[in-house]
């Protein structure tokens, strides 16, 4: 007779409970996302960075003055709400807020282009060095070591001298010099990835080395690449603003945060708004990006603390 002890009923109920309300497994991405949301500094920073991005791109449409428009009646004027110069004007009568928005856009654009370039070069270079190993690896990584020892800012400046002031080439140039650390990280990851069974399976299936690198290794590098790319963005913004500060960056009437700061600093006693507006945007942007990068690192790679 079934169920005289009640054991079967209990087991059935347990099996039903398992089938209906089983605890769901969480993927690595979900885990990482939960950790990122739990990190208050990173969450606030993401919000702040999004706000800056939105106002830098949408803000100009709500301002009465364009960034290169000269207001002949309002040269070197403090903030004046009635005329629409919410944060004052510069020595040429151009609206500071509009110029700061334009400068922020420029910094974001540089960061995006240069980071993309550095990620592409770094990932391909590092994955090839790590996958082939041996002598190829030794030569390729020795080259990276040499480049590390050289002061890369000098090369950026030489690139500027050569390319003149063509911004696009300049961004690509910065990206071409920023890939070294990415290549090292990717190589290290590739060295351990290539020992895994799925690579062996791909080899057994007859896949060529480049198919394995791009189809099987690179997709598995997403975590560290995303983390490091996020950490590269503020570095590139700093490099660009540094070049612009020295007068080697973007050309008038376009502007960037570095240029604005370099024009604002000498006149800070008389026209303080010319320095503090762009400086505020630059610092807030860099701070938030740095917290986002740290948060992503903690979220995607919790052991690396």
């Amino acid at each position, binding site marked *: 007779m079934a169920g005289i002890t009640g054991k079967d009923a209990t087991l059935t109920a347990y099996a039903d409970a398992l089938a209906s309300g089983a605890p769901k497994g969480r993927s690595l991405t979900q885990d990482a996302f939960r950790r990122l949301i739990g990190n208050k500094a990173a969450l606030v920073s993401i919000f702040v960075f999004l706000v800056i991005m939105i106002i830098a791109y949408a803000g100009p449409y709500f301002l009465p003055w364009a960034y290169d428009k000269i207001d002949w009646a309002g040269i070197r004027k403090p903030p004046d709400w009635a005329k629409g110069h919410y944060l004052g004007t510069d020595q040429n009568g151009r609206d500071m807020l509009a110029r700061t928005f334009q400068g922020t856009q420029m910094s974001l654009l540089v960061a995006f282009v240069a980071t993309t370039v550095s990620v592409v070069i770094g990932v391909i270079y590092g994955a090839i060095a790590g996958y082939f190993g041996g002598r190829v690896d030794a030569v390729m990584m020795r080259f990276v070591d040499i480049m590390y*020892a050289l002061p890369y800012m000098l090369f950026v400046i*030489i690139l500027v001298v050569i390319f003149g002031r063509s911004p696009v080439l300049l961004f690509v140039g910065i990206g071409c010099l920023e890939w070294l650390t990415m290549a090292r990280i990717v190589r290290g990851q590739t060295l351990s990835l290539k020992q895994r069974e799925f690579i062996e399976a791909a080899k057994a299936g007859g896949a060529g080395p480049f198919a394995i690198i791009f189809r099987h290794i690179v997709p598995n590098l997403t975590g560290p690449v995303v983390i490091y790319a996020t950490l590269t963005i503020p570095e590139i913004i700093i490099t660009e603003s540094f070049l612009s*500060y020295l007068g080697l960056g973007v050309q008038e009437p376009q502007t960037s945060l570095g240029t604005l700061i370099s024009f604002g600093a000498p006149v800070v006693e008389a026209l303080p708004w010319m320095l503090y507006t762009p400086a505020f945007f630059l610092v807030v942007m860099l701070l938030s990006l740095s917290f986002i990068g740290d948060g992503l690192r903690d979220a995607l790679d919790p052991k690396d603390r």
Partner: protein
Amino acid sequence: MLGYALRRVLTAIPIVLLTITVCFFILRLAPGGPFDGERALPPDQLRNLRAYYHLDEPIFMQFLGYIGGVFRGDFGPSMVMKDFNVSALIAIGLPFTLMLGFTAFIVGTLAGLLAGAIAAVNQNKWPDYVLVMIVLLPIIIPNFLMANLAQIIFGIYLHWLPVGGYKPGAWLNLVLPVAILAMPHGARVARLTRGSMIEVLGTNYIRTARSKGLGARLILARHAIKPALLPVVSYLGPGLSYLLTGSIVVEQVFALPGIGKYFITAALNRDYGLVLGTTILYVFIILALNLLVDVIYAWLDPKVRYR
């Protein structure tokens, strides 16, 4: 030990030669030049100028001539500052840049070590939180902005320190530049020291020392400091190269007479001779210092020597 040092010197020589070669050809083959003024020069004058600077010879001959000059310490003429040759300009600027850089290096390293050690010993208590926050700022905020803000606060509003300029003996003028240059370096040293010190303090042999009753200070001085210093020492090489490029900005912002200022002026004026000369000098200094750091590292850690 001597063999290791010798091997390192031998590998550094081709790097210097390669850098000279690459920079020379990039600059010579680039479009535009130092004689492109607002007004086009008459062709005769341009020809004379080019002949004077040997720019009309085949580029390979120019290169041989240049390399030969470099080995004799002659970096050729400056094409824009016509009364000087590059070696003379370097001789004027280099002592100052080295003095500024080394002072900042010593100040930054000591301050960073101290801050990092204090933070590590007080891990997750308020001195740690405060120091970690302070150390974050100079790493994130670009040094030109820090320099400007320091000028404004200490020079213009408070009148404590001069805003810029320098003449021999005016050491007050150096306080702000050295501080600004030392800050990012010190901050990175502090981060590294904190991290490696925390790791070392968690090891078994430190627990053994503690369990046999050694005091906290003695443990720190006798057992923890030396292994905790290794990652810091390996950072000092790249750190020096950050410092030298940082000194370009600081010299520019504070109007100081170092080679960084010449480098920027030369880059803006397309003065190829001067750009090339200062770049070679920077690369040479940085490689030499890296070499020194590597040898010190090998002396501290025998594992490196025999690899």
